[in-house]
């Protein structure tokens, strides 16, 4: 019976959040567009052949304008732009989602330890965070990629590490606030273990804000990974990635502006939709912050 009550309450909460979210037209638009990008990335194989359309160069078909065969035209190597954009979405989402997960989880652990146990451990962890945060995230990521060598995996590692300190700080501040609350005190009074208090009592209270934060950082991670690929520290050609496509277009875009416009618009639209979605989620989950 107890379990049933809990799920019912959770469902009610979910419906309430969805109701608030739905009222925000911009956020719904963001959700629709972002779902479309995700769907596009997932179904890329249905429409295009990776080797044939994305990688293989075709000197006869360079710089073709949009046509029935190539809906967005072709690039400087005669490759289909639409196919590269679609596979580029897969790359961008793969990188930014992995980075978001890989920086949020360790950040949560560090933030929990620092915020819950406090004391010396807290000050040491926070001073380390301070040092990491004194180096701008992008610069940090550049340095790590420089040390490990440019590749997709290293790009993900670099961006994740540079994102951990801010998540840790954010989590810590929330844990610190909740630690003094009465429900935590009473849980401790009845002899609940530290781990259980963190997991059952504090975590459910911060999970929604953590998700909002992760959504909001998703957009900036898409931008950062595109930026790093642009300066040659991320995805290596011929693999399709929006930032790398823009970098390759640098020598040709004055005569063929579409090589510049299309990947840029893809980034802009995706990031815009993620940001709108994140803002909407934040307002829906916590009406006070509006």
């Amino acid at each position, binding site marked *: 019976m107890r379990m049933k009550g809990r799920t019912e309450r959770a469902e009610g909460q979910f419906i309430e959040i969805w109701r608030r979210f739905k009222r925000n037209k911009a956020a719904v638009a963001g959700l629709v567009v972002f779902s479309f990008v995700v769907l596009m990335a997932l179904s890329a194989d249905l429409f295009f052949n990776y080797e044939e359309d994305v990688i293989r160069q075709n000197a006869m078909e360079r710089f073709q304008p949009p046509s029935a065969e190539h809906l967005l035209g072709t690039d400087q190597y005669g490759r289909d732009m639409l196919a590269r954009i679609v596979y580029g979405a897969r790359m961008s989402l793969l990188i930014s989602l992995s980075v978001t997960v890989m920086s949020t989880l360790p950040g949560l652990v560090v933030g929990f330890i620092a915020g819950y146990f406090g004391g010396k451990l807290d000050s040491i962890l926070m001073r380390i965070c301070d040092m*990491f945060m004194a180096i701008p*995230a*992008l*610069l940090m990521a550049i340095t790590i990629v420089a*040390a490990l060598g440019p590749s997709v995996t290293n790009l993900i590692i670099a961006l994740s590490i540079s994102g951990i300190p801010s998540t840790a700080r954010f989590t810590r501040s929330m844990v610190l606030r909740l630690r003094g609350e009465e429900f935590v005190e009473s849980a401790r009074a009845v002899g609940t273990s530290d781990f259980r208090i963190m997991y059952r009592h504090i975590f459910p209270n911060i999970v929604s804000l953590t998700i909002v934060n992760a959504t909001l950082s998703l957009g900036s991670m898409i931008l950062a990974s*595109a930026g790093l690929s*642009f300066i040659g520290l991320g995805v290596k050609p011929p693999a399709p990635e929006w930032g790398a496509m823009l970098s390759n277009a640098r020598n040709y*875009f004055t005569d063929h502006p579409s090589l510049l416009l299309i990947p*840029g618009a893809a980034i802009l639209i995706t990031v815009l939709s993620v940001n709108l979605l994140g803002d909407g989620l934040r307002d829906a989950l916590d009406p006070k912050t509006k």
Partner: protein
Amino acid sequence: MLKYIVRRLLIMLPIILGIIFIVFSILEFTPGDPVSMILGQDATPELIKLKREELGLNKPFLTRYITYVLDIVRGDFGTMYASGNSVGEAIARRLPVTLELSILSILLAVIVGIPLGVLSAVKQYSIIDIFSILFAMILSAMPGFWLGLMLILIFSTKLGLFPSFGVGDGLISFILPCITLSATYTAVIVRMTRSCMLEVINQDYVRTARAKGATESHIIGKHALRNAMLPVLTTVGMYFGALMGGAVIAETVFSLPGLGTLLVSGITAKDTPTVLGCVTVIATSISLINLSVDVAYAYIDPRIKAQYASMGLVKVKVRKRK
């Protein structure tokens, strides 16, 4: 006040040492042996051993770290592996370009962002408000380098108004890079100013001022803006670091001879001393700038000054009312 600044400088020291330590440790993982990069493939084992000793590479990690820090204190950032040029000289030559770019960009972001944010808050839900929210939204979702390339396409290639690369034409050559770099921060400042102003406008003291019959411009300028500025200033200071990181990309787009391009070329050439030097100098400048922002607060907000005064760090002059 001086005491406070000195204290802050002292706190900064371990942080900078920590930064150098982090960067130093990360760069330990760089694959490839610098000695074979300097001497080429066909160096004899004796020569390699001699060179290793000369560079101090045979010493343990901590010893090398301490030596490096001591060298920096003396102003010696080491030499580049490939060319043998001094890293310190290259940095000194290029730092002004990066600083000029960053400071001009922050100024541009503030000059555009704050008035837009204030207008947007004062005329909430008007056309101006909707426009500036949209403007901020699009700017923050746009990759800086893309904006840069678009600006080159429109203003250099098509219209021929501004140079597309280098700093040969003085201030004019900084216009496009500054717009590129400031875009994201303009968006942040617009949003921040708008929300802070909205919060302040609804406060009691603003209502009191209005009730007293103060003019609207006096209310906004004197009562609201001053109080809304503090969080905005914090944001400006906080984002300065990110801005200097973004400068790396803006410099690459416009081929500016700044620290960013030096850093990227150092990475491509696997030149560890260059990378180390650049990151250290950039991180240190950021810490210094954050310090100046903190000091600036104390001047804007008497409450903070009073806080320091209670700690015995500054003297507060009590103005007597006539």
